[in-house]
């Protein structure tokens, strides 16, 4: 298929499908995330990219045989590998017998959070999650390093014109969104703090937060959005998120425990765990939101720049 | 006494390196710079003499430095063969320095400071090679020597120098890294030691096939011995200024090569084992072939230095033969030939340099009648040639004699024949030069009377070395004793 727009859309749909697939497999948190990321952010970013890089793949491209061969070999190997796997859904697969039971059985006493995923994510394997936050932070910094354009002193005319005209058209849409955005934000907050009990948590919340902001900027134009959100602050936030997470670890260290040992955050271990998870989730949310915003804004700015140069070129 | 001897031994190695610093520092002022060089040369030579007496008194002198790798120590010791090499090298360094002063100035070369500096490093590593207490130490300084001489060979920095240096470095480094190093590691793995022992390091019941293979690796690996097909670097190195060719490629480098060959055959394998090995015979023939072929090539060279270079290749073949004959006389002959050929060949090179500086001639065909212009030089050339050929009053007589004896002991009749034939070849490619030089020239009678010799310093130097040739003929006793002590004095070599 040569039309990248369609390809992107399809991949978005694929993301959505896999998300629903996750739901059927009882992985609600994952589904939630995949829906917001695979179907949401990723697709969005790809769209922005495609608008800039051109919609059509114009390469009369002879599909290399070796690629097919590699793929077949790999796939064959994988299929071969599946042959000794425990059957799908079998409860007595080794994967379910060794480590997992402890999480299921004891997490309530040890952490006191119903959502096992959350407790594993934020506490048992909290360090992985710190790593995850740093990964997203890295991506943010990387995108900044690659794309950030020097802030323009004067808002060049034509872009604003474009925006205004656009806004004239979509009046209803704008009103609706205006009304919608607060709810989205509230929902985000809910997800943020309800992560202990239901599906959700800092990451999903962050994405939704970002989504709200992005929605806003899409409808009211980048220049407008840029006035509302100032970049340096967002960058600062992205860093602070990580630091919040880290400082929790350091505090528990100063209290004489190991790094990220929440038990020592409070006199009562369980309360400590609660506190720890809460703050950590906050950190995650903070970083994820700001990084998503950074990424989107830089993508958009760059595209705008590029187009302006295009216009100038003509 | 002994302690001070040991410190002397170390100083012999360290002083030249220190001199390098002095040379670089005093580089601005040529006189001072060359003074530094000469003084160092004198001191080193004095120390070597002292060490010689020490050795004569039967003292065992050895020095241990730190372990470079576990079980592989940098250690130095005095033993007869090394002593021969050290004596020659230190003495001839001195004379060459004297000569170089005349030459470099007369020929007003550039970058003389760099020249003297690397020269000193080279000598330092030669001393280290001569006194090396084990094969590992020897190898390390063997490589240092290669690298430190590269800038000397390419001194002029011309395109030709670059090409020559390329061949020089690539052959020497590649042979030493691929074959020599491999052989050493193999020896280390099989024998578990790299010390020099009078009767070799391998067990008598060692697998002769493998050990034989190692021998081949050694002979090819020691590229400095210029066994064909790895001899090309020597002619290539003739792009260097004459003093370099003289010292390094008549004495230091090439002799380091054959010296190593002798060391390895006599003290790593031991002549008894050597006789057993399947590969010895083949290598012996290879060396013989080198001797003959190189002589024949030499005859065709019109460029004097090139001819001398090829003659060196063939002469080195003699020493290798001596080493491989696996007979005591062979070793004696070989080690004596190191000294004899050193004096002879350095004299010849000095003459070549003198001719270049004074008459600006490099081609033999131009040298007709040159004898009237530079009688001393040509006379010296004549004497030295005799020594190389091996007829009185040249010291070469003795070494060749012992080589013949050795080949007789080993019943190597072919080798014996080769030695004799090649002596004839030597005559054929060396004697014509001085003879033609003294032939009367009719075309320009003016040339007959004007005597224009090389700068005094150079002249002195070449007289000294010529004298050396004669002295070694008249009075070879101490040299002979040293040579015969190589195999006879195991206790010194054992003392580690």
């Amino acid at each position: 298929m040569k039309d990248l727009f369609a390809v992107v859309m399809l991949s978005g749909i694929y993301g959505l499908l896999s998300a629903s697939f996750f739901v059927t497999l009882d992985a609600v948190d994952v589904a939630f995330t995949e829906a917001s990321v695979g179907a949401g952010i990723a697709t969005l970013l790809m769209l922005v990219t495609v608008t800039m890089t051109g919609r059509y793949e114009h390469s009369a491209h002879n599909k290399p045989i070796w690629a097919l061969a590699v793929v077949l070999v790999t796939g064959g190997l994988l299929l071969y590998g599946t042959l000794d796997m425990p059957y799908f859904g079998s409860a007595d697969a080794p994967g379910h017998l060794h480590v997992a039971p402890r999480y299921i059985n004891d997490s309530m006493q040890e952490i006191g959070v119903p959502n096992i995923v959350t407790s594993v994510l934020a506490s048992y394997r909290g360090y992985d999650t710190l790593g995850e936050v740093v990964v997203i932070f890295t991506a943010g910094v990387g995108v900044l390093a690659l794309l950030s354009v020097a802030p323009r002193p004067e808002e060049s005319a034509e872009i604003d014109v474009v925006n205004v005209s656009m806004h004239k058209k979509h009046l209803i849409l704008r009103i609706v969104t205006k009304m919608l955005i607060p709810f989205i934000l509230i929902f985000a907050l809910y997800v943020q703090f309800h992560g202990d009990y239901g599906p959700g948590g800092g990451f999903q919340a962050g994405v939704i937060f970002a989504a709200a902001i992005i929605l806003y900027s899409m409808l009211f134009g980048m220049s407008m959005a840029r006035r509302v959100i100032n970049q340096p602050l967002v960058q600062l936030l992205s860093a602070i998120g990580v630091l919040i997470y880290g400082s929790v670890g350091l505090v528990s260290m100063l209290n004489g425990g190991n790094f990220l040992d929440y038990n020592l955050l409070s006199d009562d271990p369980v309360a400590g765990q609660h506190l720890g998870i809460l703050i950590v989730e906050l950190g995650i949310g903070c970083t994820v939101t700001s990084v998503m915003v950074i990424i989107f804004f830089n993508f958009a700015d760059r595209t705008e720049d590029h187009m302006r140069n295009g216009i100038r070129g003509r | 006494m002994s302690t001070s001897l040991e410190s002397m031994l170390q100083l012999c190695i360290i002083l030249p390196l220190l001199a390098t610093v002095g040379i670089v520092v005093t580089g601005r002022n040529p006189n001072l710079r060359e003074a530094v060089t000469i003084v160092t040369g004198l001191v080193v030579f004095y120390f070597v003499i002292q060490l010689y007496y020490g050795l004569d008194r039967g003292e065992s002198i050895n020095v241990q430095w730190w372990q470079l790798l576990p079980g592989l120590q940098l250690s130095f010791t005095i033993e007869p063969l090394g002593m021969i090499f050290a004596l020659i090298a230190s003495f001839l360094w001195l004379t060459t320095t004297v000569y170089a002063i005349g030459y470099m100035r007369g020929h007003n070369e550039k970058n003389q400071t760099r020249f003297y500096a690397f020269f000193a490093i080279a000598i330092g590593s030669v001393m280290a090679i001569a006194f090396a207490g084990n094969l590992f130490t020897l190898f390390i300084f063997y490589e240092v020597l290669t690298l430190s001489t590269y800038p000397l060979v390419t001194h002029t920095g011309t395109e030709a120098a670059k090409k020559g240096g390329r061949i020089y470095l690539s052959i020497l480094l590649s042979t030493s890294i691929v074959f020599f190093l491999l052989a050493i590691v193999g020896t280390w793995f099989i024998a578990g030691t790299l010390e020099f022992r009078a009767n070799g390091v391998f067990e008598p019941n060692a697998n002769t096939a493998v050990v034989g293979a190692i021998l081949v690796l050694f002979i090819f690996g020691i590229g400095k011995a210029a066994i064909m097909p790895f001899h090309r670097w020597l002619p290539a190195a003739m792009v260097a200024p004459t003093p370099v060719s003289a010292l390094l490629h008549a004495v230091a480098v090439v002799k380091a090569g054959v010296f190593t060959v002798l060391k390895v055959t006599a003290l790593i394998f031991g002549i008894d084992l050597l006789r057993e090995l399947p590969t010895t015979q083949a290598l012996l023939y290879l060396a013989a072939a080198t001797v003959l072929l190189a002589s024949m090539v030499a005859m065709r060279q019109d460029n004097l230095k090139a001819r001398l270079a090829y003659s060196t290749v063939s002469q080195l073949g003699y020493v290798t033969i001596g080493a491989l004959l696996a007979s005591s006389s062979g070793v004696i002959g070989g080690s004596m030939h190191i000294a004899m050929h050193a004096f002879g060949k350095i004299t010849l090179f000095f003459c070549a340099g003198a001719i270049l500086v004074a008459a600006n001639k490099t081609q033999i065909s131009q040298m007709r009648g040159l004898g009237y212009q530079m009688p001393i030089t040509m006379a010296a050339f004549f004497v030295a040639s005799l020594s190389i050929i091996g007829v009185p009053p040249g010291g070469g007589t003795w070494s060749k004699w012992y080589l013949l004896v050795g080949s007789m002991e080993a019943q190597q009749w072919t080798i014996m024949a080769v030695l004799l034939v090649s002596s004839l070849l030597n005559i054929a490619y060396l004697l014509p030069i001085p003879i033609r030089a003294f032939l009367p020239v009719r075309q320009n009678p003016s040339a007959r009377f004007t005597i224009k010799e090389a700068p005094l310093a150079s002249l002195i130097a070449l007289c000294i070395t010529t004298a050396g040739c004669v002295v070694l003929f008249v009075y070879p006793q101490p040299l002979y004793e040293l040579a015969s002590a190589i195999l006879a004095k195991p206790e010194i070599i054992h003392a580690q």
Partner: protein
Amino acid sequence: MFLGLYNYWIVVVLMMIGFYIVIAHGNLVKKIIGLNIFQTSVFIFYISVSNIDGGTAPILVEGISRYSNPLPHVLILTAIVVGIATTALGLAIAMRIKEAYGNIEEEEIQQRDNREC
């Protein structure tokens, strides 16, 4: 007899589709999309591993004892983040390439570079 594995086989097929897009396609954006599909399929594989017949989502509720395995979920949450991070970065580079080279087709870029050096 291997019917119990059908799920994994589907996943494998998906993976390979993504993998093929990555290595066979010349368009940089398409490559990234392929990478996405590839990774997402791996996620599905993990989640399939975690699934247990009759299990419910791993959120503790009174009276339910059979939960699906939470650990892979956690891992995949992390992996998804990694995925989006990679995608974002890849797309960013693609944009820069577009600016620098004027297109995002593998061969053309190669040709330009070869012409340069």
